């Protein structure tokens, strides 16, 4: 069960602290937990874990392919490895290692790709994954997750010790908007209906959840009733909820910090078109590369704003 904040404000805990603290709590109780990093523990916030559990913390250096292979090998001996790098280097750079050594081999690993999309900010186009989830989504059986705030991170990560398979999570390292009240729980593979509505549904994940809630509030002022769904699991996708949204509201907007080609919108469209075709609009990066800038600059540059989401919602409703 979850409860959302009545007011959207910056979260007190950075996402990476939620991640590290949760993994440390898990490691206290579970000897199988192992952390791997590729020369980025200062960035990933995993220094406390590496200090507290040195025998279960593996510094791989800047060699991500080797890191993923080692994680796969560790899992073969019963360990539950959590490997981290920046999003592009934890996904597209190691796609074949994730595919063959982990997924095809039916092994059991978790990968954190930090700083998705525009949250990579000053690191720019080389470090700004608009494609990580799309690259990985065609790997059979993989689970893809994008939580939106530290409460979601903590609860979702805490569930990753006793599941089996390949799990990839993208997450901003630093601050986020707090969407959920502490104590909220999340079911991997199920979306959260954050706000009910009758005219249109906005389906979002990550940083676009808060933007979508803002958009829904703005739409309400214009007399439009919008549902908002946090679809934090991109795969396996919650087809049941998506179909319900299509049936009950008759129009869908997706909002993602990712290329709209092969992203959340594409995945939702697959569910919609096969089960209950309704007009859809896609808010996200329109097949472009990243670049440097503040996160605010980049959100505006790529149209990842509440205003854009609200405008897309109106367009979708007009097409009914």
């Amino acid at each position, binding site marked *: 069960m979850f409860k959302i904040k009545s007011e959207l404000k910056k979260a007190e805990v950075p996402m990476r602290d939620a991640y590290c603290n949760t993994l440390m709590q898990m490691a206290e109780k579970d000897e199988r937990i192992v952390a791997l990093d590729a020369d980025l523990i200062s960035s990933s916030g995993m220094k406390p874990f590496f200090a507290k559990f040195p025998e279960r913390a*593996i510094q791989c250096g800047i060699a991500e*392919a080797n890191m993923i*292979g080692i994680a796969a*090998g560790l899992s073969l001996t019963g360990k539950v490895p959590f490997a981290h790098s920046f999003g592009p280097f934890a996904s597209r750079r190691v796609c074949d290692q994730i595919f*063959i*050594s982990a997924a095809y081999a039916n092994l059991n690993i978790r990968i954190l790709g930090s700083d998705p999309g525009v949250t990579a900010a000053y690191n720019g186009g080389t470090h700004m994954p608009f494609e990580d989830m799309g690259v990985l989504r065609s790997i059979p059986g993989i689970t893809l997750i994008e939580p939106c705030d530290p409460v979601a991170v903590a609860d979702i990560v805490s569930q990753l010790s006793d599941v089996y398979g390949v799990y990839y999570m993208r997450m901003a390292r630093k601050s986020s908007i707090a969407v959920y009240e502490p104590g909220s729980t999340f079911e991997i593979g199920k979306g959260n209906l954050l706000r009910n509505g009758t005219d249109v549904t906005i389906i979002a994940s990550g940083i676009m959840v808060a933007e979508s809630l803002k958009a829904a509030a703005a739409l309400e002022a214009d007399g439009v009733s919008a549902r908002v769904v946090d679809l934090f699991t991109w795969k396996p996708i919650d087809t049941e909820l998506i179909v319900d949204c299509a049936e009950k509201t008759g129009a869908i907007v997706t909002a993602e910090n990712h290329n709209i080609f092969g992203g959340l919108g594409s995945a939702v469209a697959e569910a919609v078109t096969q089960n209950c075709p309704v007009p859809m609009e896609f808010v996200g990066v329109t097949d472009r590369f990243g670049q440097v800038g503040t996160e605010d600059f980049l959100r505006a540059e790529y149209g990842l704003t509440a205003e854009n989401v609200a405008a897309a919602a109106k367009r979708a409703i007009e097409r009914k």
Partner: protein
Amino acid sequence: MERSIRARELTAFAEEIRVETLKTLGYAGFGHIGGAMSIVEVVAALYGEFMRIDPSRPDWPDRDKLVLSKGHAGPTLYAVLALKGYFPRMMLRELNVGGGHLPSHVDRNKTPGIDMTAGSLGQGISAAIGIAMGDRMSGRDSRTYVIVGDGELDEGQNWEGFMFAYAHKIDNLVCFVDKNLQQLDGYTKDVLDTGDIAAKLKAFGWYTQEIDGHDMGAIIKAIKSANSTKGVPSAIVLDTKKGHGCTFAEGVLSNHHMNFTPEQMEEAMKAANERLEAARRALAE
């Protein structure tokens, strides 16, 4: 001369594996003959002498593990696993049969006794390191062996692994390099010259030996030496011949993957059986 008796026994076992491997490839009518033949002796030494295994419990956590990173040499491994009793010898007929248990490249989910899936070259070294580390963290004294090809060393991931294993003192790991001097497109020196592999591994900090990969006595000695080495990972560069012991493959440049006629295989089987008989006679002497 206890050791030489054991070496002769293992040589006979190797020739038995060679016969079964050829038979397995013969069922399919095509396959990766060259690289399957060159690793026969090391596989015989591992499964016949060194590896702590229990064929009735392929998932026994305390077993020693083998990662066949050059996964296309699967038929050799299938032959030895059948001979060790992991599965009935009849199953060797399933090589490359749709829905069967023996794919061209090794798959841990399909074949009892295969410890790790491989086939996308360069990835086995990392998996082997992970396995060795996992066993070490769990307090198991299991050893992990990995076989990579010399052509496979073109893949950069191997060198990431070599650096890592030295830095992390992974001394329960032995990497065999099957230096058969050939890869799919021709001689390794022409495709992408590997240079002096043993010198490179030494420079990476590995305890490195280079031996005749078809000399059982040398293989036994080298593995013993590697297994008693502490503090650094061990490498054994095996000077081998691609297609060794297969009449229509040995000495042929394009022997990575071959189609062959029943007559060619019949002749190869006859020669391989003669090698086996000779090895058994040597044992009786």
